[in-house]
């Protein structure tokens, strides 16, 4: 198939259900009312020339190229701004129109360099296409106008801006405004003098507000804004649709290829999660897949103070299998375990847990989702009966009130953040949704262009439950609860019990203000707005789950939604925003030690029987060890071998010294990853991994949407990750024979009722499916709990506010909370290996001016951050985004090791670590701490790879 850009219908789709029939160039066409004449024509493959219109943006009507003639109307209206009418008769091509269009085109071209042959967009330029389409053959104006010869802006690492080629169509400005919502671009001057600029005229792209989402690049019809990779490699010759491997939004992209080389990732307009939008990570930060530090050959060593030895796959797998089998023979199956990855595909995750349960013979399987969303599983299961968000992303279009708690969508889930911002700005033509933000820090959403939160509850870290209970107090005591809904859908007795509890005077906002530091009136106003403002939706993130009361907070959120009837239809619901791309999927696939795929407890004999029959083994009926307990057991000597796929537990788990001690105590640690990550410093076997571009499979995003990942190039390491796991299983003598991931999905569907209707064939045909997909929901389930809760009656559960044991005191007077930023991803293993580091070169400690002054700290100073657990150093950023008494940092860089200071306190129900509250002290620093120095030394020694000659000499 030759390369074709995605079709552009010129103006957005109309959602009207009313149909209109008209005639275009003698052919009848029926389209929804509100469709433009341009789009109607495109539907019958009649492409009217255009420059300023594109279907991701509202029509603008500035270029005058799309003129048409309409019977009974005077003049030549612009087809992009003219809506269809019944019986309309349109002519798109007449001698008169042709002459007009040529004239317009001539003007544009006279101000445009004629270097098409050497232009990066040659062959992929709308100006070129349109010049051809209107039959332009000569330019009668002298080519000398004002635009030419301007300097290129190459400050952005991923795209160039060449103002000489600009035709001032303003598509870029409108994309930044309408699609992304950053409003970074402006037009200066008029006519031939007009010039696009990023922020102030003096700014360049990198220095501006631009977040490098790429929307303007995609919208630009010329080579003015063009991906640098296109300039360097050339235009693509084929495109494959695949899914982003960064975050839980699950954007789909066209991977545009030239041979086996990826030229660019272009967001797919038909993607149901992203509708053609993207963020800097998925759009541009894929260079890590081919980074020089990527390890492509297996390596082994007997002990971690030896250098690595590069060996063949056979030798590495044999070495690993021998060690694992020996441990099993000597210490029993419970001495072995595995960790699945939220970055790998569903099929790969399923195989790892199968290897552990069926091959190793233990239930010691866990996943890094433990450290982020395990409380979501517990809390939503208790109250609603299943562990997943209730809505699809598009549901937000119908929300009237949006409550964001402990989440930072514009940074952590940027494409959904942009979607939410469109609703908050009301650019869909309806009154903007109201916004409540509950966060210790002033996240961007609180105040950004054209958005201002109605209420920002800047609570003290660790008091989520108190704030939510106080909101419930207001709702119940002021009579705002939706009793009709509760009587019909929930357990009434449990509701009454709960209502009585939250009504206690000790749960009033006035009483709790002392602990939450949220003024009672603000809290009351927020509660009233949530309960009475129309469709109200809650979005939450790690700021909810990563607390000792994480599970209670999730339950408290579910209680609020039930009490106000905000569940079971569009525009409402409870929505966990998942961190990594396949957190949802890895949880669904049975990655937790106590449950099999589809959230079924391992103690359930009939569920076990199903798997036992299919797999031909007996499964232990008791839950296995979780990550922190595996490490405890390792120190004790009863846990000795671990297979870690695609996760870096040393960097992402709390209390890094505890993790290091646990890993160091094991006999066999197998790390399966793209890079020698931090965990690999303690590994004996390194199995090289494959990137998402090199394998087939599926990811499941935060809205339960299962989407295909498609292989676009041969794995550099020779095998996709599922093949590596299978090879390891076979080296242990398990005799697996999957030929393709689709066969693994068939097994998942066979064994998991909520996936019963899922197959690669269907996904290929339908693009995506939202589980449950089964007899009751043959086409999947965009919204859950529509006619009743999964568990039957919704359950109210009383949540007591229990302060964390982590308390401030004279030695550690400040509270540290942690988060993420847009350009980096999780522990940063991928993004740090891309140009994204230009935006975030190091982790910084945000500290309030008052606390900074007390300590004599200025922005840019090196400071020491210490807690009861440990200390580290980093640079300070003095800002009032954080409240006095609170400091904040990210954890994207291994040199900072923010997790050296976080403690091993954890959620009471799930042991999800309490990353969000640590009592700390901040002071001036004299450079890296001992721990940082020791760690660097250990890491340096551990990463040595023996030269191949040395190996021969042995």
């Amino acid at each position, binding site marked *: 198939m030759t390369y074709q850009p995605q079709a552009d219908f010129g103006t957005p789709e109309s959602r009207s259900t009313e149909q209109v029939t008209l005639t275009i160039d003698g052919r009848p066409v029926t389209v929804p009312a509100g469709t433009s004449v341009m789009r109607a024509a495109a539907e019958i493959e009649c492409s009217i020339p255009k420059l300023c219109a594109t279907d991701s943006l509202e029509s603008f009507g500035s270029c005058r190229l799309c003129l048409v003639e309409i019977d009974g109307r005077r003049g030549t209206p612009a087809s992009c701004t003219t809506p269809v009418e019944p019986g309309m008769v349109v002519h798109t091509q007449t001698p008169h129109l042709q002459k007009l269009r040529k004239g317009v085109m001539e003007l544009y071209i006279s101000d445009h360099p004629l270097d098409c042959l050497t232009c990066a967009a040659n062959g992929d330029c709308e100006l070129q296409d349109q010049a051809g389409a209107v039959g332009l053959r000569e330019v009668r104006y002298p080519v000398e106008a004002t635009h030419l010869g301007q300097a290129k802006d190459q400050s952005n690492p991923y795209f160039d801006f060449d103002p000489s080629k600009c035709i001032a169509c303003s598509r870029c400005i409108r994309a930044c405004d309408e699609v992304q919502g950053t409003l970074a671009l402006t037009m200066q001057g008029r006519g031939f003098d007009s010039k696009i600029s990023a922020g102030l005229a003096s700014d360049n792209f990198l220095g501006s507000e631009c977040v490098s989402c790429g929307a303007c690049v995609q919208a630009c019809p010329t080579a003015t804004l063009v991906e640098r990779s296109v300039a360097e490699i050339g235009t693509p010759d084929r495109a494959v649709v695949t899914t982003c491997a960064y975050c839980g939004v699950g954007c789909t992209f066209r991977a545009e290829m030239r041979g086996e080389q990826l030229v660019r990732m272009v967001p797919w307009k038909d993607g149901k999660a992203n509708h053609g939008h993207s963020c800097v990570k998925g759009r541009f930060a894929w260079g890590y897949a081919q980074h020089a530090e990527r390890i492509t050959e297996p390596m082994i060593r007997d002990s971690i103070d030896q250098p690595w030895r590069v060996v063949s796959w056979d030798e590495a797998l044999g070495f690993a299998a021998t060690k694992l089998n020996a441990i099993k023979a000597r210490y029993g199956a419970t001495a072995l375990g595995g960790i699945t990855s939220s970055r790998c595909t569903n099929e790969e995750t399923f195989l790892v847990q199968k290897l552990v349960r069926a091959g190793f013979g233990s*239930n010691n399987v866990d996943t890094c989702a433990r450290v982020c969303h395990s409380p979501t599983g517990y809390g939503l299961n208790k109250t609603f009966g299943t562990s997943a968000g209730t809505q699809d992303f598009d549901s937000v279009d119908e929300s009237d009130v949006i409550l964001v708690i402990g989440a930072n969508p514009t940074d952590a889930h940027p494409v959904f953040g942009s979607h939410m911002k469109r609703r908050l700005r009301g650019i869909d033509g309806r009154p903007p949704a109201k916004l409540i933000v509950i966060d210790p820090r002033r996240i961007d959403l609180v105040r950004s262009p054209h958005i201002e939160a109605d209420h920002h509850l800047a609570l003290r870290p660790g008091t989520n439950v108190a704030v939510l209970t106080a909101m419930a107090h207001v709702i119940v005591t002021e009579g705002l609860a939706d009793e009709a809904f509760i009587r019909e859908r929930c357990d009434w007795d449990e509701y009454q019990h709960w209502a009585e509890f939250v009504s206690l005077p000790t749960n009033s906002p006035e009483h709790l203000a002392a602990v939450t530091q949220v003024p009672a009136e603000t809290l009351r106003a927020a509660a009233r707005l949530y309960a009475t403002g129309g469709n109200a939706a809650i979005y939450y993130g790690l700021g909810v789950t990563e607390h000792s009361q994480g599970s209670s907070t999730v339950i408290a959120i579910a209680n609020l939604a039930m009490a106000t009837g905000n569940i079971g239809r569009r525009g409402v619901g409870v929505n966990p925003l998942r961190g990594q791309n396949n957190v949802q999927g890895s949880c669904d696939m049975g990655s937790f030690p106590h449950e099999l795929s589809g959230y079924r407890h391992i103690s359930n004999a009939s569920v076990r029987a199903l798997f036992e029959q299919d797999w031909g083994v007996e499964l232990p009926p008791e*839950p296995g060890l979780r990550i922190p307990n595996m490490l405890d057991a390792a120190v*004790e000597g009863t846990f000795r071998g671990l297979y870690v796929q695609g996760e870096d537990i040393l960097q992402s788990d709390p209390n890094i010294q505890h993790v290091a001690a646990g890993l160091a105590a094991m006999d066999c640690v197998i790390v399966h990853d793209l890079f020698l990550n931090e965990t690999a410093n303690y590994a004996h076997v390194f199995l090289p991994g494959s990137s998402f571009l090199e394998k087939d499979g599926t990811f499941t995003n935060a809205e339960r949407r299962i989407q295909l990942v498609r292989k676009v190039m041969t794995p550099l390491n020779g095998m996709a990750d599922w093949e590596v796991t299978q090879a390891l299983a076979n080296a242990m003598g398990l005799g697996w024979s999957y030929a393709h991931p689709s066969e693994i999905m068939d097994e998942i569907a066979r064994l998991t009722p909520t996936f019963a209707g899922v197959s690669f064939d269907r996904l290929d045909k339908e693009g995506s499916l939202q589980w449950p997909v089964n007899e009751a929901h043959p086409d999947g389930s965009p919204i859950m709990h529509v006619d009743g809760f999964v568990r039957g009656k919704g359950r109210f559960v009383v949540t*007591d506010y229990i302060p964390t044991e982590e308390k401030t005191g004279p030695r550690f007077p400040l509270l540290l909370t942690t988060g993420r930023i847009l350009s980096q991803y999780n522990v940063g293993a991928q993004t740090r290996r891309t140009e994204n580091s230009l935006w975030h070169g190091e982790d910084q400690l945000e500290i309030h001016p008052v606390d900074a002054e007390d300590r004599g700290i200025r922005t840019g100073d090196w400071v020491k951050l210490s807690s009861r657990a440990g200390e580290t150093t980093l640079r300070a950023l003095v800002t009032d985004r954080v409240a006095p008494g609170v400091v904040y940092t990210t954890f994207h860089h291994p040199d900072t090791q923010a997790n050296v200071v976080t403690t091993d306190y954890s959620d*009471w*129900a799930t*042991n999800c670590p309490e990353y969000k509250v640590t009592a700390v002290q901040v002071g001036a620093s004299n450079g890296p701490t001992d721990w940082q120095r020791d760690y660097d030394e250990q890491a340096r020694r551990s990463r040595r790879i023996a030269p191949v000659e040395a190996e021969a000499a042995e």
Partner: protein
Amino acid sequence: MSAGADTTATLIRMANQIAQGLAREADPAAAAAEHIRLYWEPRMIKALLATGGAGLSPIAQEAYGRLAGA
């Protein structure tokens, strides 16, 4: 687990946290014992039972009794 001092302390703390988290259930001790059975690996339960229960809160103490009796 043969329960080093650290691990023992962790298990006691976890059991107390669970008991506290479920203190509002109709039968908190039963709920806590059930929670531990559903989520803890047998080694951890054994190690908890080997501690003798010192340092457990009253609800956790009762849950401990149920786990030991089971």
